[in-house]
Every structure is written in structure tokens, then in C-alpha cells.
């Protein structure tokens, strides 16, 4: 589930508040907050929609892990999913990388 909004990267554009399908975030006067962590469905879509790579979703769907923001930054995982699906400028070619047709019927 969602663990981190990196305060150093977040610009309070609040796209995550809008894009989260289960309404996990709340807008505030400052940066958005993770207001309902237990409602997170671990779909990772907020990471894709965050233009600043400020969010980190842990793959643990049932329990919060309490991941440290510094550790997340150092892991290189912030933004890794967005890069992998081709939703960054440098990786745009990956939008056409789907080769599922090679796996069907194998």
C-alpha cells in the first residue's frame, strides 16, 4: 500500500488526490497527505500519475510497512514503475513494448 509522499519532491499539484481510485489522499493547505492508507488497493497507479516521482507504493497489500523516505530515495525505486511503462520522456518507447502476443497460446 501507499507508504510515502516525499516532501522534497512533492509540489502539491494534488494529482494523486484526484487520480487515486480509492480516495486515499486528502488535499491540505500544504502537501497532500495519506489520509486513508487502509483503503489503498495497491494498484500503483498514483505512482504513474505523479509527475514528480514523489510517491512510493509498497507491494505489501495487507499491512503498512513503515518505509523510511530516505531509504526509498536511496533504493532508486521512486519513479521506477513510471519509467518501466514508458510514461517518462526518456522511456516513451516502452509504451509499445508489450509483447504479450508472444506469450498467448504458448
Amino acid at each position: 500500500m501507499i507508504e510515502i509522499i516525499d516532501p522534497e519532491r512533492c509540489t502539491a499539484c494534488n494529482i494523486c488526490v484526484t487520480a487515486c481510485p480509492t480516495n486515499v489522499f486528502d488535499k491540505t493547505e500544504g502537501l497532500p497527505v495519506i489520509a486513508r492508507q487502509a483503503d489503498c488497493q495497491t494498484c500503483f497507479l498514483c505512482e504513474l500519475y505523479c509527475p514528480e516521482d514523489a510517491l512510493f507504493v509498497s507491494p505489501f497489500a495487507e499491512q503498512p510497512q513503515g518505509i523510511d523516505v530516505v531509504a526509498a530515495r536511496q533504493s532508486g525505486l521512486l519513479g521506477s514503475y513510471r519509467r518501466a511503462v514508458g510514461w517518462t520522456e526518456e522511456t516513451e518507447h516502452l509504451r509499445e513494448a508489450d509483447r504479450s502476443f508472444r506469450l498467448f497460446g504458448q
Partner: protein
Amino acid sequence: MVAIRPRAERRNDSNGGVAFEADVLVLGGGPAGTWAAISAAERGARVVLADKGFCGTSGATAPSGTGVWYVDPAPAQREAAMASREAAGGYLQSRHWMARVLDETYAQSNRLAEWGYPYPAGDDGQPRRNSLQGPEYMRLMRKRTKSAGVTILDHSPALELLVDDSGAVAGASGVRRQHEDSWTVRAGAVVVATGGCAFLSKTLGSNGLTGDGYLMAAEAGAEFSGMEFSNAYAISAAFGSVTKTLFFGWATFTYEDGSVVPGAASKGGRKAIARALSQGPVYAQLDKADEQVRATMRASQPNFFLPYDRTGIDPFTERFPITLRLEGTIRGTGGLRITDDSCATTVPGLFAAGDAATRELICGGFTGGGSHNAAWAISSGSFAGRGAADYALQTKRAPDTSVRRAGTAGLQAAPQRALDPAQLARAVQDEAYPYEINYFRNADRLTASLGRLDQLWRDVTDADAAAWPDLIRTREGAAMLATARWMYRSALARTESRGMHWREDHPQPDARQRHYVTSGGLDEVWTAARPHDEGALVEAAE
């Protein structure tokens, strides 16, 4: 050229929320809902789409990758495609429906290419259109929905339908959860595209999919078909949410001690996994994938690898604990009963599309991966959108027609204290999750479970209306509860094994039961048998 389309009109709402006057209201903004909204707008209808979450990320498709039943129109290929799954589905499909779904899916997928969907090309340079990446697909569908002139209400769960004096559906109302106020849309027709029900099992992208549309439709008098086909379970890492049936086809499944679970397989061996999980932990390792398959998997489905990459597991060389997550009617095939080619339900003015509608017409009682489900969402969405638009533009109800709110459970004042929605959800999950009730079915356990579920329904109807912020959760719990009761009554009525429905006490198919099980009702749940195909075609022609 940009066509100017009529838009839904915003009206003042005396209750302080927002109100719209439209021809078609679509509930749900996943694939089926967006195709319905676009198709209705293309017919000249004024359309509002209300999504519980965010149209573009909501639903089971957005976070996933999905195959699409996209088949070349050459007659031999079409024939092979239709014939390939008839046995698995228990021969409940309709050739008429399979053919028109293949036609529609082919045409609409080609439009996706025109709209800019980045389909890959094969080694021959030809495009491959039998797979869609969820985030990319649904981002594009949101854009096309907007450019079609549809008014999108995000974070706006519907709570109940509006019904006129004749019993026809005339709109819906709900709440805007980020504004803590209400919305009301008066419409000539409503399309229910709210998805299936997975009982909050955390299977990928499903936590908004709690059967809300089933409940609302049933409150207006709609019927269901095939609700016994509702016991699909998907494999995921024990700790994670990402399911991908296709990839686990390359897995070996083992017990704690490392020995292989006999008969365990992603396809055709999931019951063996369920049995093993009842005894203790089960592990998987995708060791049957060679280097080339591994690379293809990585490129094709980045989301599949998130749980492993982020925990330092190499799923090809290391084993990891797995679980089965209930997918209910998302990968099950039951849903609202459809009565004609326009995806009309049994209630005038109410149409159904996607997982909210029965998929028996193309899948029978079984669906494997997303392929048929994705095709059904595209095509039934398009059929329902056009059908709803034509119906609304022909009937033209006067805007001042009196309507009543059809909602029941959780919405009406009653003597008992309002229920705790979390407790309600857990009580339903306790009946819907267990393999020994839902997967390995028998009359005794289904009957006992129904006794508890029926009592729970009485508790819900005796309880006072829920207040903000429990209102949405209470309606979700009531919808899951109602869904479980249609599922298990239907499962009890089908005294045989067919499709995914498996009865321990009737393990063989019974040729006399090659029929549909219809169900409905809230306080009293009923079931009835309806003949397959021949009968259905006569009915459609009437």
C-alpha cells in the same frame, strides 16, 4: 473536424449538491462504462458518467494488462475462436452473441489504434491488437470520453436509482465524496457498468468493485443470470495484490518442504492449490520460463514484477509464498440478465454492460484470462450505450416527471442502530472467501451459509440509515451481501457441475441442466431455470 455534441445540462439542486439533466447516465468509468458513454454520445445523447473513483484509474483493467479477444474476420479464424472455449464454458454460450462481440471488438479495437493507442507490431511489421496495457488504455478512454462531450463526475459513487411511476429507471443519485455533498442525474436511461464483485479481496484493482450496481438494479426490479458462476480465485504473491493467471502458467507450485503440489497449475489445477493452501503455505517459482519468455514477460507486464522487484525476490529463480484471492463475478461470468441485443435488462430504461452484465452469452460458465472479458466490456459497453441513447431519445420523458428513490438497505430510517460497515463487510467475506463454501460447493454448506447471510440481510434492513462517512461503505456491504445471496441460491439451484461452478455432491454435468439459472429479489431471493439459446432467441425476437 470536431463535432459539437450536446452536453448534459447542469441544474440547481435545492439540496446543495449538483444536479444534471441528461439523456443517458452511465454508472462506472472502466472500459465498459467509457465505451458506453462514448457510444451514447455518438448517437447524439447528452451523457453523464459517474465514477465511484477516478475514470481512468478505476476498475480492474486500469492497473493491469489484459488480453483482448481480437480475432481476424476470416471465417475460419472466427469459427475456431468461437469453438475453442465452448466446452470449458459448459455449452452455455450463444453463437449469435459471440459473433457480434467479435465483430464489435474488432471494429472498436481498430478505432483505438486510430485514436493513438500504441499497439505494438509483430516481427512481420503488422500491428498486434490482442493485448492492452491498462494504464495506457484507460487514460486514452478517459480522454475520448471527455472529447465525446460526456460530463464526467469523478469520486461520485451512485447510491440509488431513480424510478418513475411506471417503474422505468429515470436516473440515479449519489454522493461526491471529495465534496461531501450529493449528486442527482435525471436521465432517460441508465447504463450500469459498475463492474463485478470481488468482496474487497484486494485482487488487483478491485476494491471499488463491490457489486453496487447489482444492488441498485435489483432494487429497481432487475434480474440476474449465472450468479453461480462466481467462484473464480486468482493467484498472487501471498503479500501482494498483483494477479496474472497467464504468467503463473510457467510456475511450479510447492509445499513448505519443497515437494511439488500434485495437480497444481494456474490453468486446470487451481483447486489443487486451494486444497494445499487449506493445509499450509504454498510457494510458486516461475522456473518453466526460459530466458526469452522471461524477457517478454518483463517487457509486456511491468506491473507483474513490482511485488518481486520491490522485495528483492527473483520470481524465476526463487520461490515465494502465494495465495488465492477471490475474484467473485469479476472473473466469474454471472451478472445482470440481458434481454436483447441492446443490452437492456428486465427493467425499462436500465441497461447493463461489462462485468455488471452476465457474460454467459459469450463465455458460458467459465472465463480464463481477460481476453473475453475485455472484449465483452468493449462490445457490451458499445451496445448498451447505443441502446440506452436510442431508448432515451425515443421515449423523451418530461423533465418534471415525478420520480422516487429506489434505494433500500442502509438508506431508510429503521428502529435498530445503524450497522458498522467494517463488521458487515467482514461478515460477508467470512461466507464468500472460504474455499470450502464457495470453491468446493455442496448443498449442506451452501444452505448453512445462506442461513447466516439471510439473517445478516434482515439485520441490514432492520438497521437505521447510515450517516456520512459510513454511507458509502454501508451500501457496499449491503451490495456484497446481496451478491453473495444471489450467488449461493443460484449455486444451490444448479445441482450439477458446469463451467467454474463445481458441486462436490454433484460432480458431473447433467445434460438436463444445460440452462441458465435466473435469480433476483432482495428480502426473498428466488431462482428459476431458463432454457438455453433456442428459448433465448425466441424471447429476443418477441
